[in-house]
């Protein structure tokens, strides 16, 4: 049933990676992406792949879930690979009608594909091992320093978490309204684009009204429960660094430094 869907793609299993603080995983993802760009060359990629592979093994998430994430961007991947492959100048390797493949094109295309694949796998590893709630918490706390430049970090976190809670409810509501309008003879399936867009009106208006009603109810309920912004709040599960988190940071930095060195040595 629709209510059972979890947003994001959390894969529930007990592993070291799951236990890590969400902030660590956030930093991991960013640094890993950086690492893909500091080093280039076959050995750097092998190194990056080995590191990612190790983390995947530690996370106990089956590889097929990572691949699933890739499938959705396959089209994008192929398209941009083609652009690079055919349009980059260099020494011509193959020439066929108006299509020509150069050594430079091949190099950039493969570089790009490898980077993208690693990038997607790296970041889906984060969403697979972190619950949306932890992620929100991590973002709120991890980006806390932005408060100094007046970014409303707490409010953004609160909004994300409320959105997570209400999206499944609203999806169910769409379903209900759709059926109710179908019972009144509404047709959502046939017709051209314009007719279909028009057919959405009886769906969208009740949905917006419902969303606003829920929002105002929720605001009242939150006020009744003493909500007054992030000031002076405590947490049921405050984010706290454990030894394993510090170890993870050290490993990450070692990885990044070694990647830079490797890039320098080979480049």
């Amino acid at each position, binding site marked *: 049933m629709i209510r059972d869907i979890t947003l994001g793609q959390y894969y529930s299993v007990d592993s070291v990676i799951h236990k890590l603080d969400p902030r660590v995983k956030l930093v991991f993802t960013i640094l890993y992406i950086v690492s893909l760009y500091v080093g280039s060359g076959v050995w750097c990629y092998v190194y990056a792949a080995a590191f990612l592979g190790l983390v995947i093994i530690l996370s106990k998430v089956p590889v097929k879930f990572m691949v699933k994430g890739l499938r959705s961007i396959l089209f994008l991947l192929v398209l941009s690979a083609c652009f690079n492959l055919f349009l980059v100048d260099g020494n011509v390797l193959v020439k066929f009608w108006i299509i020509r493949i150069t050594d430079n094109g091949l190099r950039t295309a493969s570089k790009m594909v490898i980077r993208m694949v690693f990038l997607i796998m790296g970041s889906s590893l984060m969403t697979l091992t972190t619950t949306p709630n932890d992620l929100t918490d991590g973002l709120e706390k991890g980006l806390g320093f932005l408060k100094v430049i007046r970014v409303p970090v707490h409010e953004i976190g609160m909004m994300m978490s409320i959105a997570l809670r209400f999206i499944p409810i609203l999806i169910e509501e769409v379903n209900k309204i759709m059926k109710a309008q179908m019972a009144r003879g509404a047709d959502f399936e046939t017709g051209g684009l314009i007719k279909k867009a028009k057919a959405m009106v009886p769906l969208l208006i009740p949905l917006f009204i419902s969303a606003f009603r829920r929002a105002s109810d929720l605001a009242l*309920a939150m006020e009744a429960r*003493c909500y007054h912004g992030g000031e*002076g709040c405590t947490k*049921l599960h405050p984010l706290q660094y454990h030894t394993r988190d510090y170890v993870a940071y050290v490993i990450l930095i070692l990885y990044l430094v070694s990647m830079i060195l490797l890039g320098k040595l080979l480049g």
Partner: protein
Amino acid sequence: MKIIDILHLIHEYKVYDDDEQEVGSVRALNDVTLSLEEGSFVVVLGHNGCGKSTLAKHLNALLLPTEGMVYVCGNNTQEEDDIWKIRKNAGMIFQNPDNQIVGNVVEEDVAFGPENIGVPTEKMVKRVTEALKKVGMEAYRLNSPNQLSGGQKQRIGIAGMLAMRPKVILMDEPTAMLDPSGRKDVLNIVHELNKKEGMTVVLITHYMEEAVDADRVIVMDGGEIKMDGTPREIFSRVDELKNYRLTVPQVTELAWELKKEGVDLPDGILTKEELVEALCSLH
């Protein structure tokens, strides 16, 4: 001891036209004076639009008086500095269980109130466990609220309120959207909290059956208190209740009809057992 004191409370809603110009006001509460005993179970009855929800919102400072005073646990709702004290002392449960749950995990939602009033983490864990135990939902601690039934969600709402350790529970039609079994669960819990923990309960409802076990029943109409008494007193005035667009449970109605026919029954029969016993003694 009086836990809630309402003195000549008047509430007016402003009415605006399409250009957002104020064009007048509607009086939702008209000179309401009422005080409630600590530890009592009070049911407020009345049809939709009679002002009962407005009254409830005054009891934890979600609305402020146009005229008059409201004191909750000795604090005036118009003192801005006391507003969080009042909301902590008088917890509120609303009609739609979905729209009052904030957290994505049951325990996180229960902790929402305590987090806001700054309860330290170690104490909070204890409070959450305690609150969930009181509503019988410990097993669902780590579930998503979306997987629960309406009645269960309402119980989570109650737990979230209990975790703030309030003295008064305000409930604005908490059972209107629930099925019969969910309704029973919620009522049983509230009665238990009233009896065992001595909490004051203000239950707004239009299910007459829910008023039967109360200490005191208040009937509202047109923003005013029209009837005030024990369930027995109130339910013996069936004609008057019907006037206020309310009905009585079938037992009470049957007893009332029989009495009208000259059968010698006591006033305001509330339960099946009472009626059966009274009839058997006549038989």
